[in-house]
């Protein structure tokens, strides 16, 4: 019995752990839209992979990373209309993906599994891939931590003080793109973006340092994953949505608690 839930559980915990620090940067750098756009482009990756009959994971990684690279350039050049451009790119890639899929004879996309993934279907191989990506992301973030904080606090000061801000920003976006791409396959668009944004937002008001925010966000994320999977196991609810719903309620209760405490 335990084997059924073991890999999904470990995979969820790993994604929640890396989601803490990565999600904190998503909030500090106001990149939530980027996450959404990259996630939407993943569907284009899926469509291309099915159409050309090539490896889906690799195609998704390539498409998501390309999207991240394009976005970082877009961000540099068209600062004023960034949100508009992001929305256009996200929806164009999503729509193009759906059009390509419709051209494939006899194939029907299960939009549910794209949105919510199938955490409970995660096997050993998926788990190993998620593990590798999580460890690599964690190493990058901890290695560049001071510079990343400096970038988040003020990009121009960081640049003047000698940080290669353009490169660092691109690496951070690529890191996010890889985690999102790998995460979508396992847990779906909805869950991976939620695991990035919600726990980090929940922890903000409780902490006074960037490290504490990242660590507490990971903790909230892991708690949501464990609670969601438990609920899914006993009440037979879908795993992904259960985790997102619990993370969301944790956010609202945390805000409410802090409001009442004042």
């Amino acid at each position, binding site marked *: 019995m335990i084997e059924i839930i073991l890999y999904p559980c470990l995979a969820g915990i790993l994604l929640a752990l890396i989601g803490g620090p990565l999600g904190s940067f998503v*909030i500090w*750098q106001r990149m939530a839209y980027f996450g959404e756009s990259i996630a939407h482009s993943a569907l284009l990756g899926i469509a291309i992979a099915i159409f050309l009959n090539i490896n889906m994971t690799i195609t998704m990684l390539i498409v998501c990373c390309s999207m991240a690279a394009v976005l970082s350039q877009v961000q540099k050049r068209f600062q004023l209309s960034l949100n508009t451009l992001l929305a256009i790119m996200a929806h164009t890639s999503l729509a193009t993906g759906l059009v390509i899929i419709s051209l494939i004879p006899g194939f029907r996309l299960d939009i549910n599994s794209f949105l919510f993934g199938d955490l409970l279907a995660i096997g050993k191989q998926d788990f190993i891939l998620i593990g590798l990506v999580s460890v690599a992301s964690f190493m990058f973030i901890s290695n560049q931590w001071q510079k990343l*904080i400096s970038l988040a*606090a003020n990009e121009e*000061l960081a640049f*003047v*003080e000698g940080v290669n801000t353009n490169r660092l920003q691109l690496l951070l976006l690529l890191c996010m793109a890889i985690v999102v791409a790998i995460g979508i396959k396992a847990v779906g668009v909805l869950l991976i973006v939620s695991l990035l944004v919600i726990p980090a937002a929940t922890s903000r008001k409780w*902490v*006074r340092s*960037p490290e504490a925010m990242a660590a507490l966000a990971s903790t909230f994320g892991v708690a949501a994953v464990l609670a969601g999977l438990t609920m899914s196991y006993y009440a037979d609810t879908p795993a992904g949505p259960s985790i997102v719903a619990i993370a969301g309620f944790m956010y609202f209760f945390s805000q409410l608690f802090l409001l009442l405490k004042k």
Partner: protein
Amino acid sequence: MSEALIALRGVEVHVGSQTILSHIDLDVHPKEIVTLIGPNGAGKTTLVRVVLGLMKFSGTRKLKPDIKIGYMPQKLELNPQLPITVKRFLKISGANDKQLAQRMAQTGIEAIAHHPMQSVSGGELQRVLLARALVQNPELLVLDEPAQGVDVIGQAEMYSLINKIKNELGCGVLMISHDLHLVMAQTDRVICLNHHVCCHGHPDHVSHDPAFIELFGAKVSENMAPYTHHHDHEHDLHGNISHKEHAGHHHD
């Protein structure tokens, strides 16, 4: 004179069809304070951003190799979602604890070291930003209106601190300031900017320049003059300048 820390030649900045800067030559040497003055919208901040490498331009920009620059921006946009204390904000520049303690004492911000950056008041923030510019012992200090939002006593203190640090580090200082009466005594060179360099040179010289008087009026020229030394002119009761040979007053 020693080698320039930064040298700009023929710098032009255009945004759309608008010319923000044209024909700018600028040098800053070690141990000298260069003050940029000019009306609002004259391109002072743009010029500073060109110096820092934050702005696209045409022309040439030569920096001393591996130069360490300290920058104090006019204002700081800090994401409210980033939990960070004053001390940590200074430390992310890569400074060590000794430098950090020294600069916090010098700028008088020890009491707020553990406060969140978002709770710091306007005047305190200026001192925090100055400390951040200083923590790495820069060779070139670039200050964009350093005393903005600071009370009058604090302003004088801030400018004398900047002068003291220049002497201590032997760094070059490029600063934008509107507080002409406070900064001129310590300034080695003034550059008066209005999209191009209207006039430049020693404060005494510049305050008499017709281009300067046209831009700022005789009143400013008069306010600026008493704080510099060795004048070669007198003022009449209305603040107009009447040149007389060797009739200058001295404030020694």
